[in-house]
């Protein structure tokens, strides 16, 4: 288990050395990244098999918590760490697209993303979060167009604002508790953070981390970045980075801020996210921005789900998040060649039948059409909302359904266009082989999930149960209860 740190540092050290390796052999530099990601995926997978339903903490530097930094490895963290490694492997800039710097940045994203999922220390999470942020600014400007630079600086300003606020939030928490270890914070939270100061810290942290998680209303960067970045990068940001931020928010919510106010805040912001995202997508005129707005809406649903306290909400939210994690990258890859106006997609199915068929499949699952996995995830969200019974939760359910009606309409408007006869003035382009292969793989995964629903659901329920089990977290980390002598 100790070697799980390699999930983080192996990509980092490779990224540091990539320019050096490149000096000696371009070929080696080009393939060392995928190789390292393959290795980390393997390490993660073998750890997953070893872990079972247990949880372990890695004490970095060998210091007993809460003195040092710990990584907390449970199924949730490991799942997302593996997803990051594997996801970056899939979305790697193969064929030397974008050159050495993009490869370096992608490796850094893999390392920092895994770290963000695994970290069990509040400030360490902040550092990882900033690292992920800086990597995403770098990736966002890959195309080096003026619009990309403008979008990136706008993104940076919102994100930096949010980060500064979360730093202030961390200061508030540290002031109240004197520790940064999540396990110890979980121990102390009912006593020390269950007040105005704690809630204010939550607000600041939520808004800060919400920037990456596409939380309304700090998500104005989403359509701009996704329209100007390469679609591979959009896939990484929408698929992986947003989910990592979501996982961090989930951890904070479960461990430190179980107050009803925190959940209500998340619920309201989630509802607004679904409403604004889906409505804005209704009239979006190019595919990247349709996907961007839809992504905002989908993450809104995830937040609505997490606002249901207890295992049911976490289960539903994780199902939604994982589903979106699978679907959105694939859709963005398909949009790589289809990034012009929607009108330009007329007849696209003729040029790329497989691409169009995959687009239909992913759209159907995104809408939640049974028996595709998206339906079950949405059903979980809706049943958990209905179980709450309160009016605001019912509003959430109604808004999700309204969103689905809108989403069905705008996605199928696009699909209908694709299957029309192509205009005489040039057909839209087909897909690159690599994009198509990766999307097909994800599509196959989606279909496989249909047949493995029951075991997957059981496993996911187990993960949700473990995630909400605060005692297990505390016991696994076992912070020494040092108290202030004063």
């Amino acid at each position: 288990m100790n070697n799980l740190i390699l999930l983080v540092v192996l990509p980092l050290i490779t990224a540091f050395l990539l320019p050096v390796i490149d000096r000696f052999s371009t070929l080696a530099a080009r393939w060392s990244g995928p190789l390292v990601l393959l290795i980390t995926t393997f390490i993660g997978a073998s750890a997953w098999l070893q872990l079972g339903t247990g949880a372990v903490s890695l004490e970095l530097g060998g210091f007993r918590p809460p003195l040092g930094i710990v990584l907390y490895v449970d199924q949730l963290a490991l799942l997302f760490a593996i997803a990051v490694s594997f996801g970056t492997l899939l979305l790697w800039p193969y064929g030397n697209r974008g050159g050495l710097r993009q490869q370096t940045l992608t490796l850094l994203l893999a390392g920092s993303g895994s770290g963000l999922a695994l970290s069990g220390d509040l400030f360490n999470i902040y550092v990882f979060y900033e690292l992920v942020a800086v990597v995403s600014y770098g990736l966002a400007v890959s195309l080096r167009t003026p619009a990309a630079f403008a979008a990136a600086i706008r993104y940076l300003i919102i994100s930096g604002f949010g980060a500064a606020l979360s730093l202030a939030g961390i200061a508030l928490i540290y002031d109240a508790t004197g520790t940064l270890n999540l396990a110890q914070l979980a121990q102390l939270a009912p006593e020390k953070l269950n007040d105005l100061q704690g809630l204010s810290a939550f607000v600041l942290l939520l808004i800060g981390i919400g920037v990456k998680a596409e939380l309304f209303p700090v998500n104005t960067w989403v359509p701009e970045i996704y329209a100007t970045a390469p679609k591979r990068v959009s896939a990484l940001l929408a698929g992986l980075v947003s989910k990592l931020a979501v996982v961090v928010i989930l951890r904070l919510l479960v461990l430190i801020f179980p107050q009803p106010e925190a959940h209500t805040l998340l619920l309201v912001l989630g509802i607004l996210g679904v409403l604004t995202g889906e409505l804005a997508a209704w009239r979006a005129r190019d595919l990247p921005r349709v996907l961007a707005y839809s992504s905002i809406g989908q993450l809104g649903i995830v937040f609505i789900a997490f606002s249901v306290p207890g295992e049911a909400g976490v289960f539903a939210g994780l199902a939604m998040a994982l589903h979106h994690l699978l679907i959105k990258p694939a859709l963005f890859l398909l949009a790589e060649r289809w990034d012009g106006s929607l009108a330009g997609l007329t007849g696209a199915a003729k040029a790329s039948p497989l691409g169009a068929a995959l687009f239909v499949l992913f759209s159907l699952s995104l809408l939640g059409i049974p028996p595709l996995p998206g339906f079950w995830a949405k059903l979980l969200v809706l049943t958990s909302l209905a179980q709450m019974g309160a009016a605001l939760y019912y509003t959430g359910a109604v808004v999700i359904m309204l969103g689905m009606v809108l989403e069905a309409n705008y996605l199928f408007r696009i699909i209908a266009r694709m299957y029309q006869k192509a205009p005489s003035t040039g057909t839209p382009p087909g897909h690159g082989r690599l994009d198509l292969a990766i999307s097909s793989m994800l599509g196959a995964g989606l279909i496989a999930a249909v047949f493995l629903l029951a075991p997957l659901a059981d496993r996911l329920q187990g993960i949700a149960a473990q995630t909400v089990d605060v005692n297990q977290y505390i016991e696994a980390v076992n912070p020494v209860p040092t108290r202030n002598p004063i």
Partner: protein
Amino acid sequence: MDMGTLMFAGALGLMLIGTAALVLSGHLMRMVFGLALLESGASLLLVLTGYRSGASAPIILDGVVPASMVDPVPQALVLTAIVIALGVQALALGLVLRVHRAYGTFEMREIRRRMERDICDQAGLELPSSNEVPEPYPGSPKPQQGEY
């Protein structure tokens, strides 16, 4: 006014000035500086949480362990936070320079409009119709009759 209030007022003031620069100014450069101020304010707040009245710095000189030392952790955290902020600001400045080179302006409104226009051009779309009639940017061709 005791020391603590003054210190906290400083942190609060830095954060407010930074925020003001972010929301009130449309100038990109000022926004980046505002961001730096905001970060400094937050860092100051963080380091203040480790202050203990009447304690000495956490350095053991000549093997003598002081009776009461301040919390070393926030100092280390702030060290990290400052370096992070430094990196982000360097990158931000680079991006600002790039944007200025491309669009010839630091004005956020103008930059946003040019960006929207670039995105639409690239996608082959008309600019979305807006109630705000945009002024022609510096150096732009004169709008034809009925273009807007």
